[in-house]
């Protein structure tokens, strides 16, 4: 099975053809199977992230033909092109720099004086949001995230204009909103904690969600219904003021 792998070393990008040899006749390989075989077989320095091989750790996301896929659990077919996630800056081969997203949440996770009785069950929606594996597939086509890169993609920007991920991106994304909404519906979060979570969402650019066609989650979490709408509803007038 012939596929293409976009490689990048020391800033130089290249498109490499790779011919995957199936391990048995019926095999329908995952993207990760191809990368592991390529590394064992002629491309020993190939850089890619993976961890659990079971769609739990969230680190293996790559783009297939320009759309994000979780490499360990998405099948690949003849002619597909594997490239690094376009929504984050590329480092080597398929590895992108991820930490600008997490760093924007620094100082925004306090729940401000949680309740003392820990023996409280959380609502179903809380668990639905906890299912997020931090794969960053939802960054794809998110206009809020694109604000970090002048409305485009990180690698389209001139080097001197690029934001420093170590500072944390200033504009948010579906993942960061999910983290904040999770705090808001945690039964142990205080009223102050809930309201500061909403403030943070607004600060990260919640206004971008107004009229946006919405985000897609890599593992099927209903982001629009469980994150965006509840937040927009709660922010209501305040967004109007801002807008």
């Amino acid at each position, binding site marked *: 099975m012939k596929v293409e792998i976009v490689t990048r*070393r*020391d800033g130089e990008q290249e498109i490499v053809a790779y011919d995957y040899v199936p*391990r048995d006749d019926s*095999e329908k*390989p995952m993207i*990760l199977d191809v990368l592991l075989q390529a590394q*064992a077989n002629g491309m*020993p*320095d190939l*850089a890619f992230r*993976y*961890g*659990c*091989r*079971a*769609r*739990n*750790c969230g*680190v293996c*996301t790559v783009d297939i033909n320009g*759309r994000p*896929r*979780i490499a360990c659990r*998405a099948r690949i077919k003849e002619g597909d092109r594997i490239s690094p996630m376009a929504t984050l800056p590329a*480092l*080597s*081969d398929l*590895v992108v*720099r991820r*930490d600008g997203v*997490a*760093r924007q949440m*620094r*100082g925004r*996770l*306090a*729940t401000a004086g*949680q309740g003392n009785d*820990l*023996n*409280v*069950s*959380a609502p179903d929606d809380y*668990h639905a949001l*906890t*299912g*997020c*594996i*931090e794969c960053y*597939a939802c960054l794809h086509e998110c206009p809020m995230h694109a604000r970090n890169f002048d409305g485009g993609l990180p690698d389209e920007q001139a080097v001197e204009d690029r934001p420093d991920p170590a500072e944390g991106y200033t504009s948010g994304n579906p993942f960061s909103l999910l983290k904040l909404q*999770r705090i808001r519906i*945690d*039964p142990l979060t205080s009223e102050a904690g809930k309201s500061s979570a909403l403030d943070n969402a607004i600060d990260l650019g919640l206004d971008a969600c107004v009229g946006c*066609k919405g985000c*897609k*989650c*890599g*593992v*099927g979490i*209903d982001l629009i219904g469980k994150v965006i709408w509840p937040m927009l509803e709660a922010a209501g007038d305040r967004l109007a003021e801002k807008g």
Partner: protein
Amino acid sequence: MPIEVDWCDYDVVVVGSGGAGSHAAQAAAATGARVLVVSKDPIGASDTKISEGLATVRESGSDDDSEEILSENLKMAGGDLPLNAITDAFAADSKEAYDIYRRQGLRPEIDDERDIPKPLPLPMGGHTRRRSVGHRNSGIAFGHANWNMIVQGEGIDYLEDSWFLDLVTDQAEAGTDKSVVGGIIYHAALGRLIAVKTSSVVIASGGLSTLYFPKTDTMRGNTGDSYAIAARAGADLVDMEQVQFLPFCLASPPSYEGLLVGEPVTASYLGVLRDKNGKVILDGVFLRTRADCSSAIMRAVEDGRGSPNGGAYLDMTANKRPPRSGPYFMRFVESALPSAYKVARQAMSKAAGNCEEPWEVRPSAHYMMGGIRADEHGASVAGDGDGSAGAGLAGLFTAGQAMGGVFGANRLGSTSLTEGAVFGRRAGEAAAHLARKSATRDTREEAFTPMIENIRRRFGQKGDSAAAVLKLELQKAAWINIGPVRTADRIAEMERVLSDLDAKLDDVAVPGYAEWNQAFIEFEELRNLIASARGVCLASRERDGSLGGHVRMDGKQISAFSKPYSTVVSHSPGGGWRVRRVNRDRTPLKQIIAFKIQDAKRKAAVKWLRMLPAGMQDRALEKKYLAVMGAGGTAKEVMPGGADAAVGEATQA
């Protein structure tokens, strides 16, 4: 241009951002220490995040549980190898440490009547009480809590995509022993080395199961870094022959090879293990330890009675068939280990997924019981018997899978998430305490220089070998020679393979560029895998009989009544690797006998169940399930990775 070096200094450096690392960092920061967390994977992406999410919470299942009972349970299951002080600490702290997770957003289901988190309906294999609490979204729920702890940043700085390469040690004053003065980090995303000065390092960087890839269910990063780094700095390792192989993992299809599909408890009341001829090789599976099940499978394989892919069959069809109790069994399997069951359903046939056909299972490397030799505060120890911190490597602390001496020869299910929280917190506090005492110390930069120069030379190293390929050779040999079954000859063969690989290290090609140099990363991990495999070889050679996770086909089973000992492995630059034994206390005979009788009784009770006529058996089982699970509906699950959620496709607008 040689890779550049940045300098920094911290009170406490924590290596790893899994459960143990997060708790260590938080505990140290809470005392006011300035903490740096170093993680090679993105923050929180670790075994803790991909686990089944079962945590041991003392007394959650019944009021007749206690610190004494839990501590004794751990120690006896571990073949008397765990230290008393350590199992006592685990038992004492287990509830409180778990609550730290809850303060960070972990939300278990609550048993409203008893006002405590709800445990699984049955005790996990080897536990004498019900006390394993499950969580929706499994380990991912723990991952969120750990991530929040580190990212929030109160007193904690962190680096991800950063490989901690080695500890730097130096004499604080002439004539004294060496102690930790810092470490060297490769920050792959920045393409720089970081030299960090510190008096206290907590190694919480996980295990070595990647030595057996792809026959493992753990994260790729388990390359033995913890053990290799500690041993190179002169610290003792303990019980290194004790690798835990989980019995019920997949042998095929290829994309799923090695992944976990069940625990002994999954087998429920009637599940048995069969060889390829259908003969029962182990009954009462749900009451057995992981080691019992793994060794039964591998003995059948060695005997030529294994399944096509080198395993055996877990047959649960007898649970499924009865009309009354069958549906309860399915509910049990679905909710006991949701993410393992999800893997089973995705990978195997529909009939197998419904437990109407036996599952082909093969052991996978899962957890290292051995590790850095430490006391109940995670401080490195050395010397005879339990050892003392005074004799250990001053400034080295450890927690989680990196730490040895907690579980000895066998770790019971659901104990590791708790272990990370318990000893992470203890190690973090102890490390911060030492940092306060060492605050005025001067650190000589020259102590770092030789190591920095060595590392710099690797970038741009010319050669004909590729580390990623040598890694595969090593992994193949490790499974055969120091895997779930071992003999003296195989161990010797492994030592030969390791010497060969060692000799090839200088012939590994590493390009010169600094930013995310995968060849350099593979090189460092290979080096760590080789060093920790050395530890496994030496300890396996020393223990010439079978005990727990260590199965010697050419030796006898070591009896619970014999005098227990642990193996201790160490390395010195001049003297190379060496191994010796240290004595352990045996549990008093009376207690061992009582434990054995209780165990035999529980096993006999299931045997009796299996003999009942079908109708009676069905009703008896229905009653049992009703008693443990209640009549309520199945627990609803959000299933990341469920077949219903293909990335970017099946999402609602």
